[in-house]
């Protein structure tokens, strides 16, 4: 999976770094039916997501299928300097992992 379509931004504000993320993922609930075949569309969602900064996990998330399609997340990192890296890694319920990284601006 290309990481180009995922977006991750980290901007310095007064007193914190605003981290904003937009991933591309269908987040299927497993309750929807295909309009043509009438078959249930299998549940497919991001289960775990971790945000790392300075080699440590700063935020760790567990998600269900109630998070919207193409998940958006924003949070405030307290101690971040410009030029440092922020990495977000996630795993979906099919066991596939992906990573996206950015530098603080």
């Amino acid at each position, binding site marked *: 999976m290309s990481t180009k379509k995922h977006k991750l931004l980290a901007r310095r504000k007064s007193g*914190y770094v605003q981290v904003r993320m937009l991933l591309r993922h269908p987040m299927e*609930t497993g*309750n*929807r039916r295909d309009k043509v075949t009438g078959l249930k569309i299998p549940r497919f969602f991001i*289960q*775990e997501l971790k945000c790392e*900064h300075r080699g*440590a*996990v*700063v*935020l*760790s*998330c*567990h*998600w*269900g*299928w*109630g*998070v*919207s*399609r193409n*998940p*958006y*997340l*924003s*949070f*405030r*990192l*307290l*101690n971040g300097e410009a030029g440092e890296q922020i990495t977000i890694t996630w795993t979906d319920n099919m066991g596939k992992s992906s990573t996206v990284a950015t530098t603080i601006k």
Partner: protein
Amino acid sequence: MKRRELLKSGIMLSVNAIVMSGFGFYSSKTFAAWPKRIFYTDTIESAIREITGQPSRELQISDRVKIEVDKIVEDGSTVPVTIVSELESTKTIYILSDKNPNPVIAEYQMTTEISPVISTRIKMGGSGNILALVETNNGYYHTSQSIKVTAGGCA
């Protein structure tokens, strides 16, 4: 002398271990596996019982947990929500929605590196309540907000 120092460092280590585990932020829970039990509950009541181990009526309501959201939304499949916790030692934030087949939407495990202000977008099965549940060192607190969804749910 050497033996004494060894003993001392041993004691310090075990004290550290106790402090760290009591602190909670970096305990094994942070790296725990996806909590299947809570995501498969089908009512708010059972979800709260799974998460906190106590019935929802015993849960404390706090105005220091805030849900920032539009009270009327058009599209139930993407409802922007911001949860702000002004409680000290906020460890975990849960977002629940009572109109969804499975009410637990997300769990966020905080560290001291993060300010407890989390924004996301969630699905709502229809007009109903969003509940923010916060775990602190002093127990669980929650707040809820009713939302009117004018068109379509999460399907």
